[in-house]
């Protein structure tokens, strides 16, 4: 167990010291949030509603990007031979994957916190203290399926492909999930599909919190389903790569 803590520390350091991760991973969602909420918007009750909804959407988008990005790091480690080196340390393979997933969860926090801070400090979003706390906790925990999706890609694909596929996953999930633009603007059939995508339900955890309610049973069930799907994919990919590398 101390080994896994050291491993998580090592991986978190590696990620947070990456200027690309800090600038794009954290800066982009903040910038997009501020642009989307301050360009062409008028002052009014609708305006604050949009500032809150978009804050949750962009925080979710930032968290999603960091979570999926964990897999890009794994693919890189595979090509460096670091995964092979890890296999000859006494740390059991299961702990390596788990440690990596937990490290991925930690690196989700900066983007999440930065967007919420921009909402509170720049856009004047006011929520109860418990709501802020619940937002952080729910969006943080809810990012786990996406970390697993990234890990699955990372073990499954080559370093170059993983980067592209992960960005593709991020874009599709964010757009289809209504993280950038509300799904209310979608045509009806697309809206129905969108409600079953993982990113949409992920953001719902936040949207229901800002409305002062608990996330619905459907939201939890849909997210749990995706957790199983992405988790199985991660396990499958890991086993497959352990056989071939």
């Amino acid at each position, binding site marked *: 167990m101390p080994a896994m803590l050291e491993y998580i520390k090592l991986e978190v*350091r590696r990620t947070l010291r990456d200027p690309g991760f800090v600038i794009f991973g954290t800066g982009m969602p903040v910038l997009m949030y501020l642009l989307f909420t301050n360009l062409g918007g008028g002052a009014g009750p609708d305006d604050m509603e949009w500032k809150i909804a978009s804050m949750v959407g962009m925080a979710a988008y930032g968290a999603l990007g960091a979570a999926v990005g964990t897999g890009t790091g794994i693919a890189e480690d595979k090509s460096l031979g670091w995964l092979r080196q890890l*296999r000859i340390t006494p740390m059991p393979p299961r702990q390596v994957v788990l440690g990596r997933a937990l490290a991925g969860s930690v690196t989700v926090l900066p983007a999440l916190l930065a967007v919420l801070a921009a909402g509170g400090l720049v856009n004047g979003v006011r929520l109860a203290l418990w709501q802020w706390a619940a937002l952080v906790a729910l969006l943080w925990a809810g990012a786990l399926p996406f970390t697993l999706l990234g890990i699955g890609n990372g073990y499954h694909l080559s370093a170059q492909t993983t980067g592209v596929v992960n960005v593709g996953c991020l874009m599709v999930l964010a757009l289809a999930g209504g993280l950038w633009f509300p799904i209310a603007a979608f045509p009806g059939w697309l809206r129905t599909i969108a409600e079953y995508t993982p990113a949409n339900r992920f953001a719902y955890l936040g949207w229901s919190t800002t409305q002062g309610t608990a996330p619905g049973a459907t939201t939890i069930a849909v997210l749990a389903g995706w957790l199983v799907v992405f988790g199985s994919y991660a396990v499958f990919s890991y086993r497959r790569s352990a056989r071939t590398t």
Partner: protein
Amino acid sequence: MTQTAGTPATDTPDRGTHTASTGPAHATDAAATDAVSFTGVVKAFGAVRAVDVIDLRVPRGEAVALLGRNGAGKSTAIGLLLGLDEPDSGTVRLFGGPPARAVTAGRVGAMLQDGRPIRRVTVRELLTFVASTYPHPLPLAESLGLAGLTELAGRRVDKLSGGQLQRVRFAVALAGGPELLVLDEPTAALDVEARRAFWSSMRAYADRGNTVLFSTHYLEEADDNADRIVVIDHGRIVADGTSEQIKGSVGGHLVCFDLPEGFTAELTRLPGVVSAEVRAGRARLRTDDSDATVVALAGLDAIRRLEVAPATLEDAFLALTHTTRDAKDEMKDDTKDGL
């Protein structure tokens, strides 16, 4: 001990056969005296048999060199030894159990050949992590010192030169204080000075009673730093013993002389001669009785610029491994910088 059908057990202990009920336990005990044991191990990649039936036992505390040219099967053998790859047939045992068990128990440390640096961590952070995964690691200062990294502890791994990085890989292998240290081409990127320091640290670590197995294509390194040399060629062990034994096994001396005009005697028929080669008018005879060979040459009045020298490990290596023309040419390229 499990044996795969079709591969004869070379080390079936006679003492184990009549105690069938306690057989497995006995076999484990017997093998436990060995740090490493390969029994009839085969590994093929496609049509290429990278490891083509290897039987090898390394008792604890021994320093063993796996010597062979590039592509001889050394790295494949090391991958099998560490449990990174599974043999197609045969058995690999470390301390009497499967490799994965010894690895998980923290008894093995290894330096892989192809590892590139992970980014954005310092040498100290990397070694602290690796040490934390072992039950009885070396103190950090000690692994840094042995690898000559004390000055570089705060530097980022990805900012180091090739030679410095090689020392980091060595430190990673040492950090856990393993009983079995496995080093694949450990001195590949090191300059002369760093190489000397590396071997003195390696020997210091071996002298504490640890087992060390390293691969190299540098003959001198094998000669100077191993108790025992295992020569691998085309996935097979072609010689196994001390440097002296290996030199002796291929003919103890070289007799060289300029061939006189019109010399007709068949060189390999001369007394003591094991093999003969003529290059640019000069004959090189490998002989296991140099006195008899020289006397015979004198009788033929063939002594021109005569030289008699003990066979070097290089000669032995060449004799053992140049089974095909291609292999010989390729090997010369690989070994020349090591000589």
